[in-house]
Structure formats: structure tokens, C-alpha cells
């Protein structure tokens, strides 16, 4: 597929999520969908981090830990130190990156199910840490976090103060989807550059990769820290919407969901996490009407999906055209 048609698809995508979706919500009056879609955007950012660790051949079930850590960093910076929200979010991401480098240096030596098991524990560790540290305020968590303030550079206001806006939900929606576009564009570039090829070489054979001179230790840590950065910023914005964070905001179940988003969307596709998150989040919401059978139906569908479409939703034939586009 040519560069021009790629740009056209990208443009259609932009118009849809920035124009058509808000317009549809406007005329249908389903304001609650803003919250749903914002969540999907933020969770898909965190999921794309998980996807990157899959790409280097590691099953990561610990993204909830970094999302929680990112959330707490923003909560503490905004409420206790009066730091601007717009500055706190990148700080939260970098904090998670840094922590993940320390943790990753040792656990990334593990492969397969062993790595997965350790990461599964991380979320629980993060929760217990949040419960016991004085600065995180224990089980009570941190609430009434101020809405994002004004962002201005050289006195020119770029983003207005959220508390002065009539429609905060719409503002958060725009922040989340624009960030999502940047994250996925960056990820697409990453995967299609030499770095992506090196990651694939790791995924397939670490011994051979190191024998052709790839520094596998550093590359693994870089990938994992990018992954955690995305988990951190995703979590940070997520808690700013509800303006509160608790040790249970992101739990083991959420970490598993991040992983499921990737599985269901398709591990081989950069945009898999986006589709997967959309499908799972909306699917769960739509099944709400089935009452007590919700979880049963939901789990059956997920199991069936993984059995029938092991390569994810994007491997379906109707998506195949776009798959080729992504691969090139």
C-alpha cells in the first residue's frame, strides 16, 4: 500500500475519532460514552506497553503495577506539591520507567512462564506498597485531586484550565485520544525501524541475537522501560478523571485485562492493543444487561476467541487489507 493511501486511512481515522465520534455522542446524548471511550484510549496506551514486552518475547502481566504507580505519582505531585498536571504526567511516566529498569535488570533474565509469574506478583506488591507507605495515605487513598490546570508556554495558553470548561468529559476525551494517536504512531515507527527488527530477533532467538552482537540485556531493559512508561502515563491520566486513586484502582485483574487486550487484538499487530481494548471494554459494558450471567458469557467469549483466533481480531480476513498496510 502506497504512502498516499496510508495517509488517507490515517486521515479518516483522525476525522472519525476527533470529529465524528464527538458529534455522534452530541446528537445521541449518550454522554457516558465519553467516559467509556476515554478509558479505552488510556487503557489501550497501557496495553500497547504490554504489547511491546510481548514483542521481545516476554509475557507481561504486571502493567497494573506501573499504572498504579503512575497514578500515585500524579496524585501526590498535584495534591501535595502543587505541580502542574501537565508536568506530573511525564514525571509519572519517567518514574515508572526508572523503577522498571531496576526491577527489569533482574527479572528480565527469566523467560516464559517464570517471567509471567513474577510480573503477576508486581501488581500485588504495588498495591501493598500503596497501602503501607505514609505518603500514599494507605487504604484511604488520595481523593479530590485537582483537575488539570492551564498549560501555557511563554504566556500563550495552549490548553485552558479544565475547571473552567463546561464539558470536562470532552476535554479528557481529546487529551486521551490525542495522546493515544501519538503513542501508537511512535510505536508504529519503533516497530518498523531497525529497533523493531532487533526486538523480533530477541523474541525469536535470544542466543542467536547475542551471537550476532545484539546487546540483549540492554534491549530488553529498554523495551520494558518504554512499556512501563506507557503504563505510567496511562494510569496517571486515568486517575485524574475520577480525581482519586486507591490501592485497589489497578488490581491483578486489571493487569490480566491489559494482557487480554493484547491477546484479543492480536500480538502481531501494532494496533492490536487498540482494537483489543475497544472490544473487551465495550463488550463487557454491553453484556451488563445480562446481569448475573455477565462474567460467564464474557469469559466464554474470550476463551472461544483465543481458541478460534489465536492471532487476534486483526487476523480476521476483513482486516487483512489493513494488516498488509501495517506490515509495509
Amino acid at each position: 500500500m502506497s504512502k498516499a493511501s496510508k495517509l488517507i486511512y490515517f486521515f479518516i481515522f483522525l476525522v472519525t475519532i476527533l470529529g465524528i465520534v464527538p458529534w455522534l455522542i452530541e446528537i445521541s446524548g449518550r454522554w457516558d460514552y465519553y467516559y467509556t471511550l476515554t478509558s479505552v484510549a488510556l487503557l489501550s496506551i497501557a496495553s500497547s506497553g504490554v504489547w511491546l514486552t510481548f514483542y521481545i518475547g516476554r509475557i507481561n502481566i504486571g502493567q497494573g503495577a506501573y499504572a498504579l504507580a503512575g497514578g500515585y505519582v500524579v496524585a501526590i505531585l498535584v495534591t501535595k506539591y502543587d505541580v502542574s498536571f501537565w508536568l506530573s504526567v511525564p514525571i509519572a511516566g519517567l518514574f515508572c520507567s526508572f523503577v522498571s529498569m531496576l526491577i527489569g535488570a533482574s527479572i528480565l533474565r527469566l523467560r516464559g512462564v517464570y517471567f509471567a509469574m513474577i510480573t503477576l506478583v508486581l501488581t500485588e506488591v504495588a498495591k501493598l506498597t500503596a497501602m503501607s507507605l505514609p505518603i500514599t495515605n494507605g487504604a484511604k487513598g488520595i481523593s479530590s485531586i485537582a483537575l488539570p490546570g492551564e498549560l501555557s508556554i511563554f504566556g500563550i495558553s495552549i490548553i485552558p484550565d479544565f475547571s473552567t470548561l463546561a464539558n470536562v468529559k470532552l476535554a479528557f476525551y481529546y487529551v486521551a485520544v490525542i495522546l493515544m494517536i501519538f503513542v501508537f504512531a511512535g510505536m508504529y515507527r519503533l516497530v518498523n525501524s531497525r529497533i523493531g527488527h532487533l526486538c523480533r530477533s530477541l523474541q525469536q532467538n535470544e542466543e542467536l541475537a547475542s551471537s550476532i552482537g545484539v546487546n540483549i540485556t540492554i534491549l530488553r531493559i529498554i523495551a520494558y522501560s518504554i512499556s512501563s512508561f506507557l503504563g505510567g502515563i496511562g494510569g496517571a491520566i486515568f486517575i485524574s478523571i475520577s480525581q482519586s486513586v486507591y490501592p485497589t484502582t489497578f488490581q491483578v485483574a486489571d493487569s490480566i485485562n491489559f494482557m487480554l487486550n493484547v491477546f484479543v487484538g492480536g500480538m502481531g499487530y501494532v494496533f492490536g492493543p487498540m482494537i483489543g481494548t475497544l472490544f473487551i471494554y465495550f463488550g463487557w459494558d454491553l453484556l451488563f444487561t445480562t446481569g448475573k450471567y455477565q462474567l460467564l458469557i464474557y469469559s466464554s467469549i474470550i476463551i472461544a476467541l483465543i481458541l478460534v483466533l489465536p492471532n487476534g481480531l486483526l487476523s480476521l480476513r476483513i482486516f487483512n487489507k489493513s494488516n498488509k498496510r501495517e506490515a509495509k
Partner: protein
Amino acid sequence: MSTILEINNVTKKFGGLIANNDISFKVNKQEILSVIGPNGAGKSTLFKMISSFMKTTSGEVLLEGKRISNLAPHIVARMGVVRTFQETTIFKTMTVRDNIIISHHLRSNSNLFGFFIGSSTARNDEREFARSADELLEFLSITDIGNELASTLPQGHLRTLGIAIGLATNPKILLLDEPFAGMNHDETMHMVDLVSSVRDRNVTVLLVEHDMSAVMKISDRIVVLNFGELIAEGTPKEIQENKIVIEAYLGSEDDSIGL
């Protein structure tokens, strides 16, 4: 001839088992040296120590006078000692050409960030990698399978690809782990030619092999291991006539039939 690689008193113990005991020999520049020996003689262990995939218990390996033993494998690869694998180890879900291109990574002048933003150094690298990969494909006469998925290749081509991956890193020394294993006579002869032509690219070749006829044909010198000990070293002719070697392979000299 000048020495490129020195193995000095290398010993490897696994608990009580001695896999390599006090092995010393030298490899000359641009020669083809084979390491042979019966099963369990410690050939593969020795190879792993030379490429630093395994740590030595004692002793050292020197490349042009610099110690390379017990460093990280990717650093040894950067210094110019590159191994291929016994099993057909390749990047399965990539095409043959991509396998070779990625193996040029060592030659890249750009850092990872440069590749991400597509700096001019990175783009030059990419062009150079692609050009060199095509040249290698042609050198090994596998241009026609360049766009095939590596996982679909037959044995013989896989082995060739393994060598191509090794050559792409621009090594000083290429370690080939059983390049003739599981091949029929024609394939073996083809591979013998290939390995000889590799040497003409200014690469020193060290190989571990079982196929005696190929080894005798291709090697400049041979090192024989038995039960972890170096028992003989010399030209193919010397080795063929060496009593200790014959005994090691055949058990006793009473019913010696010669090799």
C-alpha cells in the same frame, strides 16, 4: 603465518565432571582448523567457551593478544568471533534476506535513537545493510530464495543461511558448529566449497565436525579431543597416521584398520 587466536590452558568443570582439561592450541590467521573427537569429547563445550557462551573454569582465550574469554557473548561478537549453531538456529518468521540484514547490526554506525527518528546515518546504514545482504546472497548463490520465509527452507539452505548470518557480522573468526551434520554427499561437497570460499574472504574458520571425509578434505590443521583432553594436533595427513587418534576412534590397535 601469524596467530589470531590462542587457547591457553582452558579447563571446564561441571561439578566433578571435567569437560575440557587444560587445552592449549593456536589458530593461525585465515586457516581452516577443525576440532574433532568422539562423542562427549568436549568439542562443543570448547566452542561455547571460545564464543563466551559459557564461562571457563580456568585458563583464557586470547584474540590477537586480547582476552575474550568470560566476556558477554555480544561483546565477543563485536570483537570479531562469531559462532553459528549446531541446530539450525535462524530467525524463523523473517525472510532470508531480513535474516541477513538484521545480522548486519554489528556494523551499524547509528544508535537506536537514530534508527527511531530515521537519521541520515541510520538511513545510510540501512542502505549499506541491504546492499551488503544482496552481495552475500549472491556470494552464497541463494539470491533466488532471498524473499522466502526462513522457516520454510530445507536443511541445506538453512545451514547456508546460518553461515550467511555469521558472515554478515563481518567476523575475523567464524565458528561453525557441525556444518555438515545430516547432509548427503553432494550437499557436503557443496558446503566444503562454501567454507573454503569463506576463508578467501579473509575469515579464519574454526569448525567442529563428525564427517571425517569432509574434515580431511577441508582442514589445514586438525585438533583432536578425547575425554576432554587434547590428544593430537597436526595436518590431516599427520592425524590420519596418528596412533593415539586411531585408538581413540576405534578402541584398540589390535584390529586397527586405519582411517
